[in-house]
């Protein structure tokens, strides 16, 4: 770690240092970044053999595989290269992963929506099979034997009858001369020959992470860099009236005070504006910022008060809205009377709080910018930085570091734009670090939502009609001023895709005005929709006097695939991923069985609750066991989750994701709530915006990943939506108290 390394020939620093600079210092370039070796533009392209932009093979046999999606813990940086390595028949120990810079050539790099493996499984297979075939052809030619007699065996081409063998490295140069085969020449391995796919591997970065050497955006450093903190407007859209530009300079280390313009029109990914303090270390920048004494103009959003806003949303949810899916006539059915249930559900704003807050390092020189950051979306970084600096996006090199969590926040590169603006103004590399307070007070919040539910039950206890109405400020409002209705994407997450077989059904959406930036958040609208639908389902089961598992299965009805053709208004799934009620049924049955549902003897104050939900094309059922004592304290001794995500490339990492989703779900269900007063966010750090700690997280989460030949679906997000309703249903079973509003910390569960 302390040895001095000549890193100037390493491509990954191109641009951060001026061309040809000899960089000789661990201090300036921490080992962590060397270890990560992320963002090496062109290393694959420079390999002896590089049949595509995805893979290169060096004469020493090192296989370089490009990871073009961002790694934030969900595992795509390991999973996709595993797919390629498997088809290549490469030795995983000889694979080096190279993190791609932002580049349109890769297609979408926006790592959100849990679709990295779904979208790139096939391209990775093809890239691996292409390289393997070319290596085989190179060997066959060299040995003068038919290609059909050659095969591969772990990084080696083998000619069985003659016993000839050649390592991939030895063949790399010759393979580079072989014409690239067409797709229909490719042969894929049979499943029985898979080495890595569906078997998995620990994260590629496991060792460096455990040694503290993994390179996160927070760890990026450049020669002569400055450190900045930005004072953002306390209310969205307010402009700075005055500030003290002298006092911060009294703080040792502070160098400059620089104003940043606010956004124009809808905020999108533009900077919020405010005043930056630039210093020679992060702490001085934070300290200097405290001395700014800034005052702010009013903003139209100063009217935002969460208490009143909630009442407004709930009122709207009780008022007829826009119909987004309809079948039969719920009103006619309700008019018949009988047993009618109504309920109002509510879920507040949430903040992402990835452990690593937003952070970016920018080095702007002339009409070029080099960025080092934790981003889920490097191409958006190119665009936003380009627009802010008035240079073409291609002039922006975005190096992608490891992300210390993302959860959707880091798809939005407003913080990167800040660093670029400050680098341009100072003429030096600048790293902008958001404090935790910045992260919580100035986020792109998960939407607050009010949902109204109504159903009538027939003699058999099953619903004869179901109406629900969702009201939330939409994500669209961040991108288009005045957007007030959730769009098909948000409604397709748990609202219009309710899979119950119902004669009369109507889903509606009502309008809501945004007062903060609304953004994607791990599993997005599925969170509040699944909370309402899965809790209300439980309410109906209890009203009907039926077992909640049996009731759910009955609601699903016939095993069938649901498409918008037979069910108008139902969201369209990609081909091959149609909503399959049989798959949802199966995870419900297996989760119930695994949890001991109906068999287990539970003591006083204990209860089981179930919820099941498909999101990101993955079917998940979760059973939560809860214990509520007389003081109203909640413990979660056990969670059972069963998922069907189609083919799962890395089951071990997927289990880890779903264990984590239970904790993420615990955090939002128990504590998650962001509120505003006069437009100012009231929470600021982990003291008043809590997330689950070890002792209040579920003690044991049993995750079962079903084996499946169905095409791969998402794993990063789908574990989250069923958790909160399963927990709340368990609380009902344990205490008889129905939870219709989150978070739980505001509800008194002590025995009356």
């Amino acid at each position, binding site marked *: 770690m302390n040895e001095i390394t000549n890193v100037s020939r390493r491509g990954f620093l191109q641009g951060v240092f001026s061309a040809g600079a000899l960089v000789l210092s661990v201090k300036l370039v921490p080992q962590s970044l060397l270890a990560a070796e992320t963002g090496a533009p062109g290393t694959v392209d420079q390999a002896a053999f590089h049949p595509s932009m995805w893979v290169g093979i060096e004469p020493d046999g090192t296989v370089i595989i490009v990871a073009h999606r961002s790694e934030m813990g969900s595992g795509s940086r390991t999973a996709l290269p595993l797919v390629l390595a498997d088809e290549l028949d490469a030795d995983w120990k000889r694979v080096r992963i190279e993190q791609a810079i932002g580049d349109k050539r890769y297609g979408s790099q926006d790592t959100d929506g849990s679709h990295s493996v779904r979208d790139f499984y096939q391209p990775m297979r093809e890239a691996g099979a292409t390289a393997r075939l070319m290596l085989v052809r190179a060997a066959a030619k060299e040995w003068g034997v038919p290609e059909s007699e050659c095969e591969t065996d772990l990084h080696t081409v083998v000619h069985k009858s003659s016993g000839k063998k050649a390592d991939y490295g030895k063949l790399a140069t010759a393979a580079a001369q072989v014409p690239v085969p067409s797709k229909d020449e490719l042969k894929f391995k049979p499943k029985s020959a898979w080495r890595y796919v569906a078997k998995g591997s620990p994260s590629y970065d496991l060792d460096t992470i455990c040694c503290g050497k993994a390179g996160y955006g927070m760890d990026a450093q450049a020669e002569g860099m400055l450190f900045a903190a930005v004072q953002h407007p306390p209310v969205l859209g307010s402009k700075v009236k005055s500030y003290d530009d002298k006092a911060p300079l009294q703080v040792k280390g502070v160098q400059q005070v620089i104003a940043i313009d606010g956004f124009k029109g809808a905020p999108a990914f533009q900077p919020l504006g405010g005043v930056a303090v630039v210093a020679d270390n992060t702490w001085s920048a934070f300290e200097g910022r405290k001395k700014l004494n800034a005052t702010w103009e009013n903003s139209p959003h100063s009217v935002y008060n969460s208490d009143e806003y909630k009442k407004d949303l709930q009122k709207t949810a009780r008022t007829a809205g826009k119909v987004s899916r309809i079948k039969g006539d719920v009103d006619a059915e309700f008019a018949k009377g009988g047993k009618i249930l109504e309920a109002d559900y509510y879920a507040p704003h949430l903040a992402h709080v990835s*452990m690593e807050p937003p952070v970016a390092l920018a080095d702007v020189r002339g009409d070029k910018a080099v960025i080092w950051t934790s981003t889920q979306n490097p191409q958006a970084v190119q665009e936003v930085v380009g627009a802010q600096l008035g240079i073409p996006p291609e002039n922006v090199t975005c190096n992608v570091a490891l*992300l210390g969590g993302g959860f959707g926040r880091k798809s939005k590169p407003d913080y990167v734009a800040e660093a670029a603006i400050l680098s341009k103004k100072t003429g030096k590399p600048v790293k902008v670090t958001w404090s935790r307070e910045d992260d919580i007070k100035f986020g792109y919040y998960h939407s607050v939502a009010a949902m109204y539910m109504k159903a009538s039950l027939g003699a058999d206890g099953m619903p004869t009609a179901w109406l629900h109405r969702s009201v939330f400020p939409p994500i669209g409002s961040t991108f288009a001023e005045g957007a007030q209705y959730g769009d098909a994407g948000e409604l397709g997450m748990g609202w219009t895709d309710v899979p119950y077989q119902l004669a009369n059904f109507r889903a509606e959406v009502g309008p809501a005005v945004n007062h903060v930036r609304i953004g994607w958040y791990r599993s997005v609208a599925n969170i509040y929709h699944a909370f309402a639908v899965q809790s209300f389902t439980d309410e109906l089961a209890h009203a009907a006097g039926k077992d909640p598992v049996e009731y759910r299965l009955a609601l699903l009805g016939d095993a069938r695939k649901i498409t918008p053709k037979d069910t108008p208004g139902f969201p369209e799934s990609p081909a091959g991923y149609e909503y399959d009620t049989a798959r949802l049924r199966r995870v419900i049955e297996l989760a119930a069985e695994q949890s001991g549902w109906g068999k287990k003897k539970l003591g006083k104050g204990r209860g089981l609750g179930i919820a099941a939900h498909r999101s990101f094309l993955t079917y998940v059922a979760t059973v939560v066991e809860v214990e509520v004592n007389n003081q109203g304290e909640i413990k979660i001794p056990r969670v059972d989750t069963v998922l069907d995500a189609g083919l799962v490339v890395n089951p071990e990492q997927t289990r880890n994701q779903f264990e984590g989703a239970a904790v993420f779900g615990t955090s939002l269900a128990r504590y998650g709530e962001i509120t505003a007063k006069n437009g100012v966010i009231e929470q600021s750090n982990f003291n008043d915006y809590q997330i689950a700690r*070890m002792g209040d997280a579920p003690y044991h989460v049993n995750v079962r990943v079903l084996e499946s030949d169905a095409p791969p679906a998402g794993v990063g997000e789908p574990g989250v939506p069923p958790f909160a309703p399963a927990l709340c249903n368990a609380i009902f079973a344990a205490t008889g108290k129905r939870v219709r509003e989150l978070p739980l910390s505001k509800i008194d569960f002590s025995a009356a």
Partner: protein
Amino acid sequence: MLRLKVNGVERTFDGDSQMPLLWYLRDILGLTGTKYGCGMALCGSCTVHQNGKAVRACVVPMSKAAGSEIRTIEGLSSDGSHPVQKAWMKINVPQCGYCQPGQIMQAAALFSSNHHPTDAQIDEAMAGNLCRCGTYQRIRAAIKDAAGERA
């Protein structure tokens, strides 16, 4: 001029003595394994050892670090061979990994004073270390695994 030892190396510091140790380690020494997560001793990301005890570097001013021996994740072992690190790898604990240097340093401190912690002791010792990715179950398993290896 302050003096302290970081990972066995003598260091001097003549900056603002109120600067938290965290930023000295990260911005001045370039030891970026120690992470920032909250700055208020609420998350444990910045956990290091001061004279063998786990402390939150974000709230230890340099004036209080003076004269002490600091160990960071980079100094826990040169190659990841500390029993806690080995257990972390075996159990595949991390997701994003950002909190893990702090978790490992906290666990290593627990481990040095108690080779066979109970669940309650683990919960108590680790209560100050947040993991947003939710790896707590594996952290507990890894601590127990490390204890088993020692046994």
